[in-house]
């Protein structure tokens, strides 16, 4: 956390700087880092009528569903039916991240690693199926293969099994819609403290009837598309996918000449538990401040915020209120990629972290699409409808979850030209 001040020796061993060198993404606007980056730049929309389950009885039923995912393309060791859809996404994302980092699975296997995957629903899609069977066929007709894969631990354990990792800590983080940031934060801690050399961290979730119905019943599903920060916003579209980040220490990345997307500067958490679903402005503000402190930056350093930005009435007003509480009147541009890929639940902040990494590396800010008129109650420059080019230094990625589980991640630009003149004490805390 905080380093020693003015010449005083640090209390602990020097911490390692942490960088992101590989991205694996499965989304409704593109699978694989190139397709995802193109989709973000183009402001593509993943919205479509739901095909994953029967939507009879719902007045409207769009979601950002992935319709072109084939698990067989990614699974080499495990049979596809050993994993639920969320775990399949997570494993596919991990394979992509490893390859994108210029590594092989043997390279990863040779290092001490952490695999940490966040989720909201785990394999609730399988639970939907099993309960459907119970209702229509009777108690004793459960599908054993499906029942075996419901355990949410398989989201991370599936990655470990598929990559054949042995010297590894395996964690599934169930902190709902902020879980991706929690997982990336845990990777940051594990690498910076020297516990592990490499980490595969992120989040995964699959579209399921239970969650769609729950949000629908709360009155928070948009009838057509998701319009964050818009005066006429009507809610979320549920989404699905996985975002997995391959993270390693700066020394490791420089040592192997890896391409660096971004540096993880730090993160903040707040758990207020004040209400099951309503966000708490003060708690979000505390979380943002904690993230800035942990990253050693000031609010004025932030070049853009990737908001939680669900597009519900409550979230956008409360979130922008919290940002205002910390930033004052000068708000950085604040965008929501949920306008494009929907609310991917436990994958949301991980996919947003991947988007921020691409933005930092390539120098652009993804747009908030479907935008017409900004709501004065949550007035931000949301980069409406079209991406903009921008030189970025520091980016903030918000993840806010039910139950008051908040996690804010800070990412920084990595200047390749600076690597030659890296100071000898570069491993000291930033």
């Amino acid at each position, binding site marked *: 956390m905080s380093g020693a001040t003015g010449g005083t020796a640090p209390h602990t061993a020097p911490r390692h700087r942490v960088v992101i060198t590989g991205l694996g993404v499965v989304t409704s606007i593109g699978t694989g880092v190139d397709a995802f980056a193109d989709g973000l730049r183009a402001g593509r929309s993943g919205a479509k009528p739901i095909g994953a389950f029967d939507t009879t009885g719902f007045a409207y039923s769009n979601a950002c569903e992935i319709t072109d995912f084939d698990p067989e393309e990614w699974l080499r060791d495990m049979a596809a039916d050993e994993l639920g859809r969320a775990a399949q996404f997570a494993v596919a994302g991990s394979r992509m991240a490893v390859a994108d980092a210029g590594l092989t699975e043997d390279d990863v296997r040779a290092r001490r690693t952490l695999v940490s995957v966040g989720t909201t629903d785990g394999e609730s899609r399988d639970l939907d199926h099993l309960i459907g069977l119970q209702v229509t066929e009777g108690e004793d007709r459960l599908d054993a293969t499906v029942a075996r894969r419901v355990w949410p631990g398989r989201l991370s354990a599936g990655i470990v099994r598929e990559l054949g990792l042995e010297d590894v800590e395996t964690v599934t983080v169930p902190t709902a819609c902020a879980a991706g940031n929690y997982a990336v934060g845990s990777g940051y801690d594990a690498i910076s403290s020297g516990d592990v050399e490499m980490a595969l961290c992120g989040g995964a979730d699959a579209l399921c009837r239970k969650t769609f119905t729950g949000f629908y*019943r*709360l*009155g928070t599903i948009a009838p057509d598309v998701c319009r964050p920060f818009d005066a006429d916003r009507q809610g979320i579209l549920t989404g699905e996918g996985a975002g997995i980040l391959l993270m390693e220490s700066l020394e490791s990345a420089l040592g192997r000449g890896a391409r660096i997307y971004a540096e993880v500067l730090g993160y903040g958490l707040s758990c207020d538990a004040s209400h*099951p*679903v*309503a966000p708490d402005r003060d708690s979000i503000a505390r979380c943002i401040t904690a993230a800035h402190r942990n990253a050693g930056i000031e609010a004025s350093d932030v070049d853009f915020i990737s908001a939680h930005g669900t597009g519900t009435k409550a979230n956008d007003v409360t979130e922008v209120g919290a940002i205002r509480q910390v930033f004052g009147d000068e708000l950085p541009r604040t965008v929501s990629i949920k306008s494009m890929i929907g609310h991917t639940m436990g994958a949301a902040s991980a996919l947003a972290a991947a988007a921020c990494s691409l933005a930092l590396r390539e120098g652009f800010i993804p747009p908030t699409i479907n935008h017409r008129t900004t709501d004065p109650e949550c007035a931000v420059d949301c980069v409406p409808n079209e991406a903009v080019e921008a030189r970025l230094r520091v980016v903030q990625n918000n993840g806010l979850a039910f139950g008051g589980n908040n996690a804010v991640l800070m990412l920084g630009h990595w200047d390749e030209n600076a690597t030659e003149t890296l100071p000898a004490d570069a491993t000291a805390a930033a």
Partner: protein
Amino acid sequence: MTTQIADLSTERKAEIKEIVCDILELELDEVTDISLFKEEHDADSLRTIEILASMERNFGLVLEQAELSRMVNLAGVYAVVAEAEGK
């Protein structure tokens, strides 16, 4: 509203009260027509949504989410259900 709203039958009111008490985990005699779910019975907004959903399911109605703001006590629920049944 110019529509004439028929008052609910005693039986229908009793049915509604029973459902509401079941959701709020209260005895029938703890709730009056005007006692407030949130302020007096410690109900959060999710319970109110559950009440709305139960009205739809039990009586075959479709209720606007906006009606939640009126469903603050039994009298409010009676009124919303009566209006919906009158349509």
